[in-house]
């Protein structure tokens, strides 16, 4: 009997060891990637790197200003579209969970979230780039907005569903009309949760390359024209990393480092917000 219990204990310890080992193992890829990118990229980053456009082949120096600015502009334009639309749709879904429309649009949101980013890119290519006859930052933003939408919608919906019904009743019983209840009570109370969904959606699309390949295309010069091609961080990394020049590889490493830092910071902000708000994304 005692031997049997001893055997069981050993099995338990072995099992626990295996679980701990794999829990540790899954942190390794991230740590290795982080260290590698920091090693390769951090040394590239300096003021010159952030404030100059890439140098032509054969010249040293050069930076990623065009890509930084392009990514910023395109994500900003995508946010301007996706955040209000996503919030309004999320409000509808949380307020009317049992309607047919909510069921079907909720399903569509899930499917949209699952659409591969390259497919989003090609659709926008055929809808906008081809008819207009030119690659443009605007079309890139539309592709990014489509990818942001489901995250903003779902996080808004989930956050608002967590708010107790009694909160809305408190406002309604004071004679507050429905639209003011939403604007003055529901959204402010769920603000942290909605904000965390927004930061998460930005973190997700800022690194997207595939939808930008056929839409914003890329541009070696600094540009603010939304109807013209524009560079972005992931696209710059893609083109420069696959080039045959060492100078350009370094540029790509530096850009990777910057992009990674962005995503990391946005994710940490999201984590802090969700923890504060105790929401499930």
């Amino acid at each position, binding site marked *: 009997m005692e031997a049997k219990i001893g055997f069981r204990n050993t099995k338990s310890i072995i099992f626990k060891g295996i679980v701990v080992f794999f829990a540790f193992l899954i942190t390794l890829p991230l740590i290795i990637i982080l260290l590698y990118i920091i090693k390769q990229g951090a040394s590239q980053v300096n003021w010159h790197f952030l404030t100059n456009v890439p140098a032509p082949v054969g010249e040293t120096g050069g930076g990623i200003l065009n890509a930084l600015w392009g990514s910023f502009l395109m994500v900003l334009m995508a946010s301007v579209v996706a955040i209000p639309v996503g919030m309004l749709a999320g409000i509808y879904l949380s307020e009317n969970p049992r309607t047919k429309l909510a069921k079907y649009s909720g399903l569509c949101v899930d499917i949209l979230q699952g659409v591969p980013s390259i497919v989003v890119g090609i659709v926008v290519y055929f809808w906008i780039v081809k008819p207009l006859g030119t690659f443009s930052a605007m079309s890139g933003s539309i592709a990014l907005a489509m990818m942001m939408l489901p995250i903003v919608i779902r996080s808004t919906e989930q956050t608002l569903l967590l708010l107790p019904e*009694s909160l809305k009743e408190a406002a309604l019983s*004071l004679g507050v009309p429905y639209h003011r209840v939403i604007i003055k009570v529901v959204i402010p109370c769920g*603000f942290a949760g909605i904000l965390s969904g927004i930061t998460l959606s930005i973190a997700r699309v800022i690194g997207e390359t595939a939808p930008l390949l056929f839409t914003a295309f890329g541009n070696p010069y600094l540009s603010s024209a939304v109807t013209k091609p524009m560079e972005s961080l992931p696209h710059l990394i893609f083109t420069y990393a696959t080039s045959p020049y060492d100078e350009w590889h370094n540029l790509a490493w530096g850009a990777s480092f910057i992009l990674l830092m962005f995503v990391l910071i946005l994710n940490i902000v999201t984590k802090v917000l969700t923890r504060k708000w105790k929401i499930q994304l």
Partner: protein
Amino acid sequence: MENTIVKAENYNAYFGDNHVVKDVNISINKNEVIAVMGPSGCGKTTFLRGINRMHELIPNATAKGKILLEGENVYDMNAIYVRAKIGMVFQRPNPFPNLSIYENVVAGYLLNGIKVSKADKDVIVERSLTSAALWKEVKDSLHKKGTFLSGGQQQRLCIARAIAMQPELILFDEPTSALDPISTSSVEALFHELKENYTLIIVTHNMQQAARVSDRTAFFYMGELVEFDDTKQMFTNPADQRTQNYITGRFS
């Protein structure tokens, strides 16, 4: 008759096909404290929510019949106006977590976008909190969030919020069922003071509470208003067998 503030005439309420309030006729006078009691699911809360048209906010909920507020049928009035005119306090304290204590008291004005000068707001806040017996406890922390208060204080804050709108009638939906005994007695003590200026309708599943605080008591059973009488009369000598059974604890 001119003393009547609320009068229900053949009032019926439904959730879908479920008939939860059946042909209720009742007449409530000004400055009375009315207790509405009855077993769970007897329609007392639904009746209460019918008075300020909160009932119809629930999907599938409908109502028939009349509820006259000072002679005017609330179902002919704008629901928003009815709700602003009648105060309501809920089962669980529900102060707005994004607003301070001060803002919570004047929430009815803030959220409705009614412009009130700072001086007037100060007066409203002090008067309402004083009436709700909360002023002394919170006067130094008016700009803290309302959710920092204890449950009983939060409930009194909700009462202050209702009073601030200067209603004549305040509805209470089991206002103490989520509170501890000490908070409960402080809220109950408040009812006696509020009676001077307001009419109170208090839904409660607690018979002792009904007996302690009310002038008249309405007993609901299976959606019907079984008996409505002076509280003392009802607890000592109920007219209906069902009331007697309920009071003596044969069912609950």
